[in-house]
């Protein structure tokens, strides 16, 4: 992955507040940029990514290298995390769970869309909603925490389905034939389901219109774990009349937020126990 990606979403680019030393804020911002699955950054890449001038970046890099938190990489032209970072661990703090990892990004998605956000994880042949933020506007439905949807119903589920291997998907269909209908628009035809899977795999997100809940438009995104599997999915939903027209326009912003989320969640493997069929 190239390091010269355009600017980060708001959570990561922190603007210095009053009474705070700006140079120090920039130093921490530069260091934080390395908290992703991108192995190294050059000055130009950092400058573009963080919206800082090259000289600001260079000053920050100098201090970080002095401190030992960054070192030059093997090529000599880029920088990578230094081993001294390993000192900054305390024996007490646990690994964040998925909800903690995703929380700041749920907020960003909510701010960008003004709609309801839901975090879902897989539970065998279903997904279960484990966190969310509700829209401030009128809500047509409530997907409460703990609700479950089968893997062929709702875009949040189908994101997870599409991430499985072809044989696992075939096995799911076999186990759940005939595919149950939840709304008039539910996918119940295996062929239609397969083309949805292919489309989802290609574009990296899934739309749903009244297929999990009637009158609701949604777009769902994958949350990647480190070994090529998914932690779960995130879905943005709203009443079709209000949300559907805005979807295409919002999509680039939402995708950018998801990209930042994923560069963080890719640092973690799916944690045990893993609820899969036969486990």
């Amino acid at each position, binding site marked *: 992955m190239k390091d010269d990606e355009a600017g980060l979403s708001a959570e990561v680019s922190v603007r210095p507040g009053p009474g705070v030393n700006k140079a120090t804020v920039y130093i921490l911002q530069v260091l934080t940029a390395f908290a992703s699955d991108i192995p190294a950054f050059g000055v130009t890449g950092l400058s573009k990514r963080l919206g800082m001038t090259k000289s600001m970046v260079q000053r920050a890099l100098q*201090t970080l290298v*002095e401190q030992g938190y960054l070192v030059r990489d093997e090529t000599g032209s880029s920088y990578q995390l230094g081993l001294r970072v*390993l000192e900054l661990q305390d024996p007490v703090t646990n690994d964040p769970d998925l909800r903690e990892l995703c929380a700041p990004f749920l907020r960003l998605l909510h701010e960008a869309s003004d709609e309801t956000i839901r975090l879902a994880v897989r539970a065998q042949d279903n997904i279960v909603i484990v966190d969310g933020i509700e829209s401030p506007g009128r809500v047509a439905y409530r997907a409460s925490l703990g609700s479950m949807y089968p893997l062929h119903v709702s875009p949040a589920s189908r994101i997870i389905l599409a991430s499985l291997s072809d044989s696992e998907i075939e096995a799911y269909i076999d186990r759940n034939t005939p595919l149950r209908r939840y709304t008039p628009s539910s996918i119940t035809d295996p062929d239609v389901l397969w083309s949805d899977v292919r489309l989802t795999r290609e574009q990296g997100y899934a739309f749903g219109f009244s297929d999990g809940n009637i009158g609701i438009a949604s777009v769902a995104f994958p949350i990647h774990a480190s070994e090529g599997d998914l932690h779960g999915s995130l879905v943005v939903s709203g009443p079709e009349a209000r949300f559907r027209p805005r979807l295409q326009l919002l999509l680039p912003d939402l995708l950018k937020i998801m990209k930042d989320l994923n560069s963080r969640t890719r640092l973690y493997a799916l944690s045990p126990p893993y609820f899969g069929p036969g486990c």
Partner: protein
Amino acid sequence: MAPSGRTPVNASATHIFDILRLVSKSDSPLGVSEISRLTGLPVSTVHRALATLEQSQYIARLESAPRYKLGPTPQFLTRAIFQKFALRSASIPFLKRIAHETGETVTLCVRVGFYVLRIAVAYGRNDLYSPGRLGEVALLQNSLAGRSLINRLSSADLEAYRSFLLDHYPDLARCYSDKGADPQCPYHRESMAEQPDRIAVAFPVKDHLGSAIASIVIADAERSKANEQWIERCLDQLRELEALIACEPTKYRSPYTHIESSTFVLK
């Protein structure tokens, strides 16, 4: 004091990192006056530094009291270091297979300088025992993984390690020796004094040149179960992993190979 010995460019930055290190080493969350006392910095400076650190989530304030502990960001940085080791992803399927076959929890520790760093784990069903955290760093002789590697250090490396100990850990320099060990043996076994029916086993992972770059560790297993067949099954997985590594040596080289071992000192 910055490790390079030069005058730091930015004094406030040094304060920030001194405070961050203090908070991370502390057994319990620290308040502003404690931090001020321990660092010798005025309270106002500490307040400003804490505000900056909190903003980027390097530290977090407790909900219940005006005391500070580490925030999530340092963890993400540690995790990002794991991801730099291609060996981590490559070894996970093998760790899982060993965990499945033996029922025990298996971890991978890579060599960084004169230390080992635990970067991957696969849980076994017998596991009621915590294998130690991912990210834990230990001096070679202070960890099972490290001890399994000491015997396989080249004589040059061993000399360098001894100098390193003299420079930085003078009271440890004579602690470890494993005179009875056969450097050709593909695994390293240790008994646990407090639990005679348990043993710990570590399998050094060698690169295409035969240098030990990491160790696969089963920290706690039933002695009666760990017979020759059990060891053979682990060794089968180890050999497959080593074959994989040998195919793409550059890919599986440590991303810190170019860093001089003696420059990395953990305090």
